């Protein structure tokens, strides 16, 4: 390689650690913030959040009851190590802007600039049906295509939904994930703020995706958005979420709850491209119900965060319902991606598949944790689980914890798992075709995750490949 090329390559490699900061890890000054709660969690803070949002009594009571559940539950000891989280060292509510705008020009300038840098307004123009942008605890921008609105589609932030669509929200609220489901769901239920509410009426097909983007700016911040999607009979919707945060030396916490109800014959796809900075604990509960003939698909890409614990679940409760989870986890230095899937076959002739791909490098740790359950009475079910792990070096780690419970004798279940290492023979073969060692390695990784990226809309597939290439920089040598 010529000297100039070597220098350019070196510069590229040296610049890797600063790339996240430049692209996503920058922070804004907290000037003009409407409210920032002091650190720590108490009954007073929870009451204050509810009062600040002028919520109905039932929601305030729901929050306070959830707080008790959170306090009574121990921190989970299974999975990733959560002992370092200091729940008293977190700001539980930060309001950056007084209102939700429907026009980017009305969003406070610093915040607008942030979303400009992240490319959200541009993406909205090009290929989205609606956008929600959450900054700190609340949504600052929300807009949905007028045609969809005319068809009765509701896509709004959760706080607005509670004010404007209280009846429908209350009917489904916490029915998929009750607050006492687990400690982090209880925490979210106590201090939730922001998130999306999506309602798709019977027979309506939302052709282009709806997107929400979540941004943490403050140090030691907790973001607790809550999303509820209701897809009525024979409707179709694709919801995409992305998330980033500044790089700080202290930890932040993201703990969301996502509930989805797929009515008979509907189809919901929920795609996540998680790229939190590496000081964020990402502890999320996601669960969907699929009724008769409905299809639920989770496409879950975990690239960022310090620790992620997330296992998107599907309860197939109606005959012939179908569920799919496609999962990618990428664990680099200092990261533990404890991800997976949970599928419960609760009705006859239901089908499901789980494809999980994990890549570990530089001492990172990826875990696949999955549960596949066939309930008593769920005859004629079919399911396939494939989890593949790729290790890029000797010091990285991959674990697989699959659990299968079968309550019916005629269930058709398949489980495949592979762990592979990028071997010298693979690299040698590609290098003999003229590729550099680094490009050869990237090509192997891209081929490895291709079954998942091909399911993403093109713009996201390109972005995901680019992010993984960035993570891969300097991994050889």
């Amino acid at each position, binding site marked *: 390689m010529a000297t100039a090329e070597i220098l350019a390559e070196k510069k590229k490699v040296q610049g890797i650690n600063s790339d996240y900061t430049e692209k996503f890890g920058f922070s804004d000054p907290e000037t003009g913030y409407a409210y920032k709660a002091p650190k720590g969690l108490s009954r007073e803070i929870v009451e204050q959040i509810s009062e600040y949002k002028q919520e109905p009594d039932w929601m305030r009571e729901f929050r306070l009851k959830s707080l008790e559940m959170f306090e009574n539950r121990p921190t989970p000891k299974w999975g990733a190590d959560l002992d370092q989280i200091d729940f008293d060292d977190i700001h539980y509510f930060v309001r950056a802007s007084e209102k939700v705008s429907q026009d980017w020009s009305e969003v406070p300038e610093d915040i607008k600039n942030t979303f400009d840098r992240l490319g959200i307004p541009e993406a909205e123009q090009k290929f989205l049906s609606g956008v929600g942008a959450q900054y700190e605890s609340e949504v600052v921008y929300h807009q949905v295509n007028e045609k969809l609105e005319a068809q009765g589609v509701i896509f709004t932030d959760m706080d607005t939904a509670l004010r404007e669509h209280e009846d429908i929200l209350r009917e489904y609220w*916490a029915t*998929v*994930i*009750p*607050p*006492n489901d*687990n400690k982090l769901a209880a925490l979210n239920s106590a201090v939730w703020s922001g998130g999306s509410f999506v309602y798709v009426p019977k027979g309506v097909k939302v052709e282009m995706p709806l997107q929400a983007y979540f941004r943490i700016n403050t140090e030691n911040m907790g973001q607790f958005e809550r999303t509820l999607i209701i897809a009525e009979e024979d409707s179709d919707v694709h919801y995409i979420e992305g998330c980033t945060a500044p790089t700080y030396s202290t930890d932040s916490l993201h703990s969301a709850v996502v509930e989805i109800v797929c009515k008979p014959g509907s189809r919901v796809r929920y795609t996540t491209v998680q790229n939190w900075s590496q000081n964020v604990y990402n502890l999320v509960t996601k669960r969907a119900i699929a009724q008769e003939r409905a299809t639920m698909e989770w496409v879950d890409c975990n690239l960022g965060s310090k620790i992620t614990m997330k296992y998107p679940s599907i309860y197939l*409760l109606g005959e012939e319902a179908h569920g799919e989870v496609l999962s990618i986890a990428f664990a680099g230095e200092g990261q533990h991606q404890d991800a997976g899937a949970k599928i419960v076959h*609760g009705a006859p002739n239901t089908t499901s598949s789980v494809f999980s791909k994990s890549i570990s490098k530089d001492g990172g740790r990826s875990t696949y944790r999955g549960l596949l359950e066939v*309930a008593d009475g769920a005859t004629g079910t079919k399911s396939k689980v494939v989890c593949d792990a790729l290790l890029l070096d000797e010091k990285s780690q991959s674990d697989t914890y699959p659990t299968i419970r079968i309550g019916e004798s005629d269930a058709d279940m398949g489980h495949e798992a592979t762990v592979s290492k990028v071997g010298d023979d693979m690299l040698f073969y590609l290098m003999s075709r003229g590729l550099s060692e680094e490009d050869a390695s990237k090509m192997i990784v891209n081929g490895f995750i291709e079954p998942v990226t091909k399911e993403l809309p093109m713009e996201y597939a390109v972005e995901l490949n680019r992010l993984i290439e960035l993570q891969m920089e300097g991994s050889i040598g």
Partner: protein
Amino acid sequence: MSTDETTKIPVCPASELGPGDRRIIEHGDWLIAVINCDGQLFGIEDRCSHDDGPLAEGEVNQADCTVECPRHGSIFDLRTGRPKTLPAFQPVKTFPVEIIDDTITLEV
């Protein structure tokens, strides 16, 4: 229960089970909770269908006529035994309850 044979089990004097109170009865392999919900009496299997743990130790909501599983929060309708929220999705059994000569009586 599909069997034709039923057994009537005395639970306690009616005056001992006020609104919101509950009593657990053991009958063979069954644990059954008798619950006074705002003056109405219900008999429900004391088992959450999610993880088979005890159900009736949970909070009774007398307005909604439900009991909430104390471990993971599934809410069961006392009238039907059906869960109204996940993670449980299968119903538990319910049993008729009546007052005979001032004694709460469970029919199993």
